[in-house]
Structures are given as structure tokens and as C-alpha cells.
């Protein structure tokens, strides 16, 4: 492998960077972990975000106060989120570690390969659920009164109104929120860099962290570029999918 960055006499590498990347087992494993990270994170965020948005929509008083307070994690910088959660989950002085301990779960979430992925997903959920909530809540507030009143007349209960009127009407808002989050979560490395550095035993090495390693630890800029292009391709495909979902709502 040629590690030198020879700017004066560049040589054409052909497809070498691509074959190197695509035949690297760690590359595919990183994509697998990214799938778990993005899938788990998005599903948890979507469920929690919609639930809290519906909660805020139905709460009789202090809606603005509650939504403002719930939005606060959004304003914490990703790096600070990582530092904060590392502090909270620290085995000697962490608040949440102690809570887990008193609940009978004697684990070190950031040091255990089985739990590390769970921990970084939870950090992402903590920080970005409010984004989904705010978008879905904005959608809920634009739902017109008439169908809801008609449902009241027909004797629908609260759950039926949510299931058959509110959720279908904010479906496009949900698609927008997912579009934004899915493209963001693919390249999200901040909390992973701070808390686990891809470890333990590569348990949280997502594609973003793999790219960072190839580029800045192994100094293999060419291969890193090809990894980055696969990430771009994945983002485009995902964006295309969600835009299609959006368009299908129009028809």
C-alpha cells in the first residue's frame, strides 16, 4: 500500500481504492453496525417522538412550557452530549450507572460489547427525539377541526381519532422528520468518538467511525474517499426513498 501523499507527481490508482475498500471485511461489518445504529435509533426516536408529540397535543395546559423544556436536549452540542453521557454512565461516579446498579443491572454500558451499541443509540435518542417531536407537533397543530368533530359525532374514542385521523394526516410530517434524521444518523460519529471510540471490541464502529479511522489513523485518504462515496450513495438512496414516500402522500 502506498501511504505517501505525493501532490507533485500524482499517479492514477484506477480502481485500487475501491477494491481495497470493498474487499475489507471491516467495511461491511461497519455498515452492518450502522444499520443497527440507524435502524434502532430511528425506530426508537420515531416511536418516542410521536408519542410525546401526541402527549403535548392532548395536554390541557402548559403545552408551550412543556414543549420548550422537552426541546432542551436539542440545544446541547453533540460533543457535549457525548461528554455528558460518559459522565452519567461512568462506573465510579456516574448517576445513571448508579441508577442501573440500584435497579439490579450490574453493567458498565460503555465497557460491555453487548451494551455499548444500546448506550450510543440511547444517547442519540435522548438528543434527537425532540426534533421528531417538534416536527410532528407542528403537523398535528395544522390538522383541521372538522374531521375531529365529525369523529366525535360518530362516537369515536381518543385512540380511534389518533389512529385514523391524526396519524394519517401527519404522515408527511413524519416522513420529513425521518428524512432529516436518517441522513444525519448515517454520518453521526460525535458521541461515538467521545464515549467509546468505536469500541469495545469494535462494537460501536459505525461506518462514520470506520471512515475516520481509515482517513486519519491509517492515513489512507484514497480508500477513505471511496468509503465516503458509499456513504453518499446510501444517503442519496435513503433520501430518494423518503421523498418517494412524501410524493405518494400527495396522490
Amino acid at each position: 500500500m502506498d501511504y505517501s501523499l505525493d501532490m507533485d507527481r500524482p499517479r492514477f490508482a484506477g480502481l485500487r481504492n475501491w477494491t481495497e475498500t470493498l474487499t475489507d471485511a471491516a467495511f461491511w461489518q461497519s455498515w452492518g453496525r450502522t444499520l443497527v445504529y440507524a435502524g434502532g435509533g430511528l425506530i426508537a426516536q420515531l416511536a418516542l417522538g410521536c408519542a410525546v408529540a401526541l402527549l403535548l397535543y392532548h395536554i390541557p395546559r402548559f403545552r408551550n412550557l412543556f414543549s420548550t423544556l422537552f426541546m432542551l436536549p436539542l440545544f446541547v452540542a453533540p460533543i457535549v452530549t457525548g461528554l455528558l453521557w460518559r459522565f452519567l454512565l461512568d462506573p465510579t461516579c456516574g448517576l445513571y450507572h448508579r441508577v442501573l446498579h440500584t435497579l439490579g443491572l450490574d453493567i458498565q454500558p460503555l465497557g460491555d460489547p453487548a451494551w455499548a451499541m444500546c448506550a450510543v443509540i440511547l444517547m442519540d435518542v435522548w438528543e434527537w427525539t425532540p426534533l421528531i417531536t417538534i416536527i410532528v407537533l407542528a403537523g398535528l397543530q395544522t390538522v383541521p377541526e372538522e374531521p375531529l368533530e365529525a369523529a366525535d359525532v360518530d362516537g369515536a374514542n381518543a385512540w380511534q381519532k389518533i389512529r385514523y385521523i391524526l396519524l394519517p394526516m401527519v404522515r408527511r410530517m413524519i416522513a420529513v422528520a425521518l428524512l432529516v434524521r436518517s441522513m444525519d444518523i448515517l454520518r453521526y460519529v460525535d458521541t461515538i468518538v467521545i464515549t467509546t471510540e468505536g469500541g469495545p471490541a469494535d462494537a460501536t464502529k459505525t461506518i462514520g467511525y470506520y471512515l475516520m479511522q481509515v482517513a486519519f489513523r491509517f492515513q489512507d485518504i484514497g480508500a477513505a474517499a471511496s468509503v465516503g462515496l458509499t456513504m453518499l450513495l446510501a444517503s442519496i438512496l435513503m433520501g430518494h426513498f423518503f421523498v418517494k414516500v412524501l410524493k405518494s402522500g400527495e396522490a
Partner: protein
Amino acid sequence: MQAKRAMLHAVLYALMALSLLWALVPILHMVLSSMKTQVNMFEMPPRLRFTPTFDVYGEMFLGRGSFRSF
């Protein structure tokens, strides 16, 4: 009907409190830690009643000592 409605509201507020707890405890912990001394910060279980110190804010805005004296 009235009682049922009151109970529903109680459940809504309880769920809201739970989600706010999830969102705000880390931030509150961070704010409180910023006003603790190093020793209190790493104390377990965390102490809720303590004399706040704003030394770190002073250091952040005014700098830690003066380098000119070296």
C-alpha cells in the same frame, strides 16, 4: 364522566413528567455539577444540597490566573 376525565388528565401529566425527567435529568445534572467543587462532583450518591460555587464560571470568563507573572 368528570372523574374519568380527571383521571385521564392525571395520566397525561404523569407521562409528561416522565418524559421531562428523561430529557432534563442529564441537563440538570450538568448544571448542578458546574456549581460543585471537584470533590462534590464525583461524590456518589450525588449530593443535592450543597453550597454552590461559581469559581469555574469565573475561570471561564476571566481566565485562570495570569500568565504574565511567569
